[in-house]
């Protein structure tokens, strides 16, 4: 299994968090399930491997479009893979997709929408070229060239909402939104509307997503070995154990102790 992240070029960094490539050397003969917690990032993904399914609590299992745009995920999801894995993606900073493409991101929350339906036929050439035999860096270059063209075309710039959303990320969701609004002299209603448009959820809800995302990343880094739950809960900024369990179960679909025992996150399949 090959999974690797790549840094974007400097001119795209205000919008793009990273690129990734995910492939397998040997075709899967048995179905494999890989799950992911909500990350707080939207993405553009191109699949050049076999088609695969997406399982969510709400929708059951559906086929994932060959190339798609996805907004914020508000719960964990599972990919159901078989055969050849081959995908390249651009992961965007929280308001990056809106800034670059001008899309109302609340429409894309918990959605994977086929790219051609969102961006029109111009994406088809990129899709076709990514699907052709190519090297890892060749595919990343194609993706980056497309985003660079989009940046030139849109004249995108970051604004205060990007700044605030990025700050929520940097502070791992442990931030008082009311104090932040006061500090920045923003009107609550306008700020919330803009945030919903640019990020896809409210600022407070986004902080909750980022907090659970950070916590899950920490758990994965320690290979889900938890010696002291109190320390985990304290470091992630939850009031108490019951608050933590309620939040975790709400986002992840099962309680924390069950999750650390039997999750199938991608990190399980990668060499540490």
């Amino acid at each position, binding site marked *: 299994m090959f999974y690797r992240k790549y840094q974007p070029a400097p001119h795209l960094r205000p919008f793009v968090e990273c690129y990734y490539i995910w492939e397998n050397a040997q075709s899967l003969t048995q179905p494999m399930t890989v799950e992911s917690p909500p990350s707080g990032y939207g993405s553009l993904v191109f699949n050049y491997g076999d088609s695969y399914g997406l399982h969510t609590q709400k929708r059951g299992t559906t086929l994932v479009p060959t190339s798609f745009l996805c907004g914020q995920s508000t719960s964990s999801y599972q990919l159901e893979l078989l055969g050849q894995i081959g995908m390249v993606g651009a992961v965007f900073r929280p308001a990056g997709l809106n800034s670059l493409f001008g899309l*109302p991101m609340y429409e894309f929350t918990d959605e994977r929408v086929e790219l051609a339906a969102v961006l029109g036929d111009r994406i088809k050439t990129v899709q076709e070229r990514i699907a052709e035999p190519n090297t890892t860096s060749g595919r990343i270059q194609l993706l980056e060239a497309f985003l660079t063209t989009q940046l030139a075309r849109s004249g995108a710039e970051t604004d205060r909402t990007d700044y605030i959303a990025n700050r929520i990320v940097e502070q791992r969701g442990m931030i008082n939104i009311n104090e932040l609004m006061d500090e920045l002299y923003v009107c609550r209603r306008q700020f919330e509307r803009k945030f919903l448009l640019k990020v896809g959820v*409210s600022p407070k809800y986004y902080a909750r997503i980022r907090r659970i995302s950070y916590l899950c990343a920490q758990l994965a880094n320690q290979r889900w070995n938890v010696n002291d739950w109190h320390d985990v809960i304290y470091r992630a900024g939850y009031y108490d154990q019951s608050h933590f369990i309620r939040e975790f179960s709400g986002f992840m679909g099962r309680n924390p102790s069950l999750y650390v025992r039997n999750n199938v996150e991608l990190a399980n399949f990668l060499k540490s």
Partner: protein
Amino acid sequence: MSHLYNKPSGSSGNFDHHLTRNVMKTAQTESITDLTRKGTSIEFFSAYQERDIERMMALFDPNGEFWLMPLGPDPQGTIGDLGRNFWTGVIGAFPDIDNTVDKVTADGDKIVCNIALFGTQTADFAGITNKGLRFNSDHIFIFRFNEDDKIVAVAIDWDHASFQHQLGN
């Protein structure tokens, strides 16, 4: 009576790795429909923020079902009748009523909106005596749409005991 929750949630059951292109197309159409419906739902909450009853009502089929979930197991009336009266009453009793949309998600033919509603009471409302107190309460609004993307049913759920408690009742 056809309830909001009667329809299955759009799950396609077991994953078939060889789904046809037609199925893909159908799923794509559903996805675009969901985007439109989410936009309509956001428009409702924008109109609610402006306390503009006519703009709110324009999004609904007036004969659609209106259901305040904490108050009973079935819809209590129509949107055009009870719904209009209810929202008019809310806006009258809480003239600064406002909302924050936390998230909007699709579930089959429904759009589920997680909302924080807040406001200050200035008049008695639905058996709750006015004590001039402020509430802030998480609400779930569920809108069911027909094929023309008109809202044909609305259900609203909230913690009514907490709501009453915050208002001093």
